[in-house]
């Protein structure tokens, strides 16, 4: 069979960069295949995808060596328009891709550009709307849709063109876990109905593997590191070495059999926990599980933030966005607030910060009602860090940016400088203090935005999706940094997130919201092994739960807790090794986002 995509000795260098981003790529992909491309940020995986749809080299200029053929054409010659008939690209940013004013118009966008007559357009739009189950939303504006629905529209918008190849650029980055799972199922369904080849670029491996994938291609530093069937790949250590997170149950089994002469075997079908043969490893898991010690993580400190009977609606006759929320947070806690998009998480943080006024109820800080305090006054005690650092950074230079909050409060220049230096040291940004913000990597910018809040010495830090769109390495970097702040400075940290890994690994407690109600307030391990709560809040049970059940462990949440504790000790040991050795090479990272 002829390959539908073929890279031959292919290299690419961005015009603005010194080094090529892709080196000598050789890759064949055949019709009907479903391929996952995985790799950390800056590995070249998105560059690889952009070569296929001709954005490279047509929109992002650079030097190409070697050949690439897609559906018998050379993308560089066919151009972006030429390739758009063959390759449908679904971008990570569902808001950016939603161009039409309504669902129907967005689905029709490619047809409009092709000057397809209106009657034919109606027909094709209806057909594709059905395919992505959006038929009853045709007149809705993007603002009325959830992230998952917008993504369905994006998908429909490219399927309307009878493409041969579907390209997904990090499709799960902005979705809550349950919606992500449904997206993967939908892709699978469409693949069964239409003759297509699917290419998914994503680092959330476990979520993509929810449905069968033919091959996983691991990319790093511009080269293909591995190209194997999932069952084979998962048995090796390639993923871990490349900084890609394995499915948790795989990691757990690997921990359990470490030291023994056992190896994970492809014949046991490790691709899905549901269908995997766990028996050969069961004894090891049970033994390992009892060896790990559970730390006591009870926090008995004084309450720092109390929320009492809190309710909110945008206007007195509008439906309630939050009703009767109650919880107490103690000094030094690190906890997560989770729930699907629109569950009321952001509204809750807006109420705490004073952007909105509650309809009913009280918020106490250190036992005192904060309702008389203004937004600015609250900001001195409760710091808010937004999702994207670009939404906060307003000065071109790092020192100015971090000192801004103090400067507008009239703190003397001398003191500002001292406090900024001190904060930059804590955040590991001191060596960069005289740099412009744009010379930093995304992760470093994130730390700048956290530093600009920390400099005001808040008692509580609220972070909105601190790790959204980050690969495993940056994720770990940011989260370890927050953990350090929490442990060493005793800072209380609240994270609003839909990242289940984050919640499991770094927080001791999870407050779960669904439809404006607080439905659970418990340890993350308990939340993620509680089927009912997980369902209502659009969370996803962790695969460790399935592993525990399959191994016959009575309390699945204990396996989860012990797994997390074990991972933490591993990470700590590794970090001490790192700091003992040479310091991490920081500095400029040419990231192409």
């Amino acid at each position, binding site marked *: 069979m002829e390959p539908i995509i073929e890279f031959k000795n292919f290299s690419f260098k961005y015009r603005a960069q010194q080094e090529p981003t892709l080196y000598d790529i050789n890759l064949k992909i055949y019709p009907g295949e479903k391929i996952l491309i995985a790799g950390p940020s800056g590995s070249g995986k998105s560059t690889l995808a952009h070569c296929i749809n001709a954005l490279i080299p047509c929109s992002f200029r650079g030097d190409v060596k070697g050949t690439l053929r897609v559906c018998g054409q050379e993308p560089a010659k066919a151009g972006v328009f030429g390739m758009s008939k063959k390759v449908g690209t679904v971008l990570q940013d569902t808001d950016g891709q939603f161009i*039409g004013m309504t669902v129907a118009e967005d689905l029709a966008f490619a047809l409009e550009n092709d000057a397809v007559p209106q009657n034919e357009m109606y027909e094709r739009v209806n057909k594709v709307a059905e395919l992505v189950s959006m038929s009853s939303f045709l007149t809705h504006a993007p603002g009325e849709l959830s992230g998952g629905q917008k993504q369905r529209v994006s998908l429909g918008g490219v399927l309307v063109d009878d493409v041969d190849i579907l390209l997904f650029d990090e499709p799960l980055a902005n979705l809550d876990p349950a919606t992500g799972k449904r997206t993967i199922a939908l892709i699978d369904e469409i693949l069964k109905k239409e003759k297509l080849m699917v290419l998914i670029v994503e680092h959330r491996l476990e979520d993509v593997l929810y449905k069968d994938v033919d091959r996983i291609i691991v990319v790093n530093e511009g080269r293909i590191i591995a190209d194997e069937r999932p069952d084979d790949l998962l048995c090796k250590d390639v993923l871990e070495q490349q900084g890609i997170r394995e499915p948790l149950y795989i990691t757990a089994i690997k921990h359990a059999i470490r030291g023994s002469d056992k190896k994970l075997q492809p014949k046991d079908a490790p691709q899905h926990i549901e269908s995997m043969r766990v028996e050969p490893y069961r004894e090891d898991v049970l033994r390992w599980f009892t060896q790990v010690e559970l730390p006591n993580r009870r926090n008995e400190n004084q309450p720092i933030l109390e929320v009492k009977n809190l309710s909110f609606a945008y206007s007195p006759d509008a439906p309630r966005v939050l009703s009767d929320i109650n919880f107490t947070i103690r000094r030094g806690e690190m906890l997560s607030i989770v729930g699907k998009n629109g569950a009321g998480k952001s509204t809750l943080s807006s109420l705490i910060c004073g952007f909105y006024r509650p309809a009913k109820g009280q918020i106490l800080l250190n036992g005192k009602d904060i309702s008389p305090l203004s937004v600015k006054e609250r900001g001195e005690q409760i710091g808010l860090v937004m999702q994207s650092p670009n939404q906060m950074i*307003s000065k071109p230079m790092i020192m100015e940016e971090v000192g801004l909050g103090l400067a507008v409060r009239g703190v003397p220049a001398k003191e500002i400088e001292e406090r900024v230096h001190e904060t930059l040291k804590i955040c590991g940004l001191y060596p960069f203090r005289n740099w412009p913000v744009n010379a930093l990597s995304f992760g470093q910018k994130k730390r700048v935005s956290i530093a600009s809040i920390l400099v005001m010495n808040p008692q509580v830090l609220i972070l909105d999706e601190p790790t959204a769109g980050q690969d495993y390495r940056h994720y770990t970097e940011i989260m370890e940094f927050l953990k350090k702040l929490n442990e060493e400075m005793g800072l209380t940290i609240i994270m609003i997130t839909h990242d289940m890994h984050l919640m499991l690994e770094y927080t001791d407690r999870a407050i779960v919201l669904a439809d404006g109600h607080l439905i659970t307030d418990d340890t993350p391990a308990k939340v993620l092994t509680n089927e009912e709560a997980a369902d209502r809040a659009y969370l996803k049970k962790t695969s460790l739960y399935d592993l525990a059940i399959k191994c016959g462990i009575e309390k699945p949440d204990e396996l989860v807790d012990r797994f997390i504790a074990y991972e933490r000790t591993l990470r700590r040991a590794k970090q001490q090794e790192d700091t003992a050795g040479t310091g991490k090479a920081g500095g400029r990272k040419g990231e192409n986002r």
Partner: protein
Amino acid sequence: MTKLLSYQEKDTWIHRLCGVTKLLFFLLWCITSALTYDTRILAAMIAISLALFAMSKTEWKQVAGVFKMVLIFMVLNVVAIFLLSPYQGCEIYGSHTVLFQWFAGHDVTAEELFYLLNVVMKYFTIAPSIFIFMVTTDPSEFAASLSRVGVPYMASYSVAIALRYIPDVQGDFRRIRNAQEARGIEMSGKAKLKDRITRTASIIFPLLFSSMEHISVVSNAMELRGFGKKKTRTWYAQRKLQAGDYIVLALSVVFTVIALVITFHDGSRFYNPFAG
């Protein structure tokens, strides 16, 4: 945030008209209202506007907030004219009928008041037509219909994108402003003018910068889906002009012509009750 006018789906003959019909009507209406100072024409226009407003089944609460703004600006403008040009009316109408003395040397004349009455009437001819236009025109169909009257489709699509992204930008602006306010950066508040401007810069810069990123994402997404590859383009939301559209267009033109003829037949755009 101020509540702004927005489209609301309803089924009236005005809603069913094409966006471009309403736009042309609106432009003709604006021209007539700007040119005529014939009080009878203005009165007729107000009557027609109000009748149309009623027929569009627009609820008062949809427009009440904006109507307040209209009144505020109207009062400011009228006061400004009265203070700065107290005898503008006398110049126009060529007479000076003192009603009373406001203070020394400052007469309140019937001519000035009549002139101001005309200015006020102009506001009331335009405001209802804007309300009708904004709340009865489907933005999708409007952008699509622009290309019908010869606007190049690239430009029509700029209008579509503007209408599509106003709510998104508004949401971003609110979130960014809130977060910066929590850091202590407020636009209002007591500070020197220069500080207020630099603070505003600190709020607008992140908004502008995220918008610039957005521009590149959206352009790529549009290019990937073939925008701009052909000389022509069809529109999903475009509607054919119906009999109703032609009737409205014809009536608008006829009305404009009649109104302007009546206004200018004596060589002056002003209706002068003070003459003779």
